[in-house]
């Protein structure tokens, strides 16, 4: 191989970046107002008959008035966020939809005045965004974007029914029965599945990344020694490599609940909820608390700034994935040693996404853990964690090991 510096065929020579290097100057973020002005806190009536008995009809994805059967839907959020349809590669600075603004109030309990009868009704927004007036039975909803993270910019309605979710969970656990912990098998009741709207941020980004490292190309492979001391050895050329890539991401989805974002596979099972991403977030609609009637929800408790490290980690990972194809000629592999990320622009939208969740509290000795089986409320993708019976696993391992060892001994005896 020639000593002349070479560049692989599929990589263009490095050029001067056409965007300014370095982090974008910290400036006040641009805010996109997403509040649904047609709704108020309190009584929101059906436009046809005036009833407040409104909820999601899963089969159509529309809101339905349970009194007169009138159906309608809120507007999709994407056109409002994208604005004039400018390319993501033109995105600069930080843009935050108003429902993703920083959390400035801890109070999760709101008091709404019922316009039907004048009573005051309390709503705990940490768990729900609507409540029924205990005097006149009207449904009261929280629709203004209170600064405690309870009301997002958008909601993606469920399109998987409860029965479908139960079947997904039953099938998932059914394949994992033989080595499951016996108490789990005995107490398994998929009918206990709960529909939950979990809080996420969807992020559009316009970024550049650089990675640097070393790669090796094998130039010769041969053997040394003879007989029992024969070994294969290699010669290789070592290259110093640099790569630059500009890219945009569309609707990268991040957990905005600190509890859900804490993924430690041996301490909790939040990773299985993370695995059922992504969702078809382009179909999310403007907020209307009636979409949540009959479901539970979890409040967002993280601001944009707190989520930046998680975003940067994912952007760097995507950058490394994007450049992988350009180092395929290094057949002995590449060791990346340094990386740099320039975030030119980001756009943040808070969203409730639909998840069917079966949870099982399992205590094994001193250790306790909640095991989830989660079903994506839009496409049915299912992932979960089933507590294992260590005795059964050990028995299977011992049986396999014994058979293999017997084969090994037989081979040795034969030789």
């Amino acid at each position, binding site marked *: 191989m020639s000593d002349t510096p070479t560049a692989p065929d599929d990589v263009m020579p490095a050029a001067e970046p056409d965007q300014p290097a370095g982090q974008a100057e910290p400036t006040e973020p641009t805010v996109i107002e997403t509040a649904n002005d047609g709704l108020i806190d309190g009584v929101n009536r059906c436009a046809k008959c005036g009833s407040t008995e409104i909820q999601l009809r899963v089969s159509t994805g529309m809101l339905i008035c349970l009194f007169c059967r009138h159906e309608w839907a809120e507007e999709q959020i994407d056109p409002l966020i994208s604005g004039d349809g400018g390319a993501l590669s033109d995105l600069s600075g930080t843009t935050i939809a108003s429902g993703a603004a920083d959390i400035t109030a801890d109070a999760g309990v709101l008091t709404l005045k019922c316009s039907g009868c004048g009573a005051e009704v309390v709503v705990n927004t940490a768990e729900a965004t609507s409540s029924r007036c205990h005097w006149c039975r009207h449904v009261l909803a929280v629709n203004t974007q209170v600064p405690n993270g309870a009301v997002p910019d958008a909601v993606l309605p469920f399109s998987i029914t409860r029965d479908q979710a139960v079947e997904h969970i039953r099938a998932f656990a059914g394949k994992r029965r033989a080595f499951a912990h016996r108490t789990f098998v005995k107490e398994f009741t998929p009918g206990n599945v709960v529909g939950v709207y979990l809080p996420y941020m969807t992020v559009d980004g316009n970024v550049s990344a650089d990675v640097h490292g070393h790669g090796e190309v094998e130039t010769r492979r041969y053997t040394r020694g003879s007989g029992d001391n024969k070994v294969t050895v*290699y*010669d290789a050329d070592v290259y110093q490599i640099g790569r630059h890539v500009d890219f945009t991401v569309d609707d990268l989805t991040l957990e905005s609940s600190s509890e859900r974002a804490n993924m430690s596979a041996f301490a909790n099972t939040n990773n299985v909820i993370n695995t059922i*991403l992504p969702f078809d977030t382009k179909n999310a609609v403007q907020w209307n608390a009636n979409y949540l009637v009959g479901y539970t929800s979890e409040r967002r408790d993280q601001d944009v700034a707190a989520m930046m490290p998680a975003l940067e980690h994912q952007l760097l990972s995507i950058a490394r994935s994007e450049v992988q194809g350009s180092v395929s000629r290094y057949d002995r592999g590449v060791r990346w040693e340094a990386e740099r990320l320039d975030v030119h622009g980001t756009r943040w939208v808070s969203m409730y996404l639909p998840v069917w969740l079966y949870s099982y509290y399992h205590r094994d000795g001193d250790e306790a853990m909640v095991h989830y089986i989660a079903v994506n409320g839009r496409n049915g993708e299912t992932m979960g964690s089933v507590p294992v019976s260590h005795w059964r*696993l050990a028995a299977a391992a011992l049986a396999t090991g014994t058979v293999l060892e017997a084969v090994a001994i037989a081979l040795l005896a034969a030789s």
Partner: protein
Amino acid sequence: MLEAAVVLAQTSSDSGDLPIFLLLLGPAGAAGVYWGLYRYYRNTDKSHDFERETIVESRPVTGNDQKVDEVHGTRSSSISGANHEDHRERVQRLR
């Protein structure tokens, strides 16, 4: 792990260490079965594959490659510390 043990045993047979390494087949197979089943039930290794499942539009990758050294007679079949397939392993961050 089971496959690794078999490969190890086969590799070892080339260098004449067959008796020692073949006896590891049982323990390695048992550990492989235990760990494989555990992961199938607990899914501890699963997460959102955002590198592939997010809409990413990238401009052509640019870069430079400079030969800086040669290695002769190494017994290792790959570069030490190879991480080109482990996209989530973070390295030194340049600012």
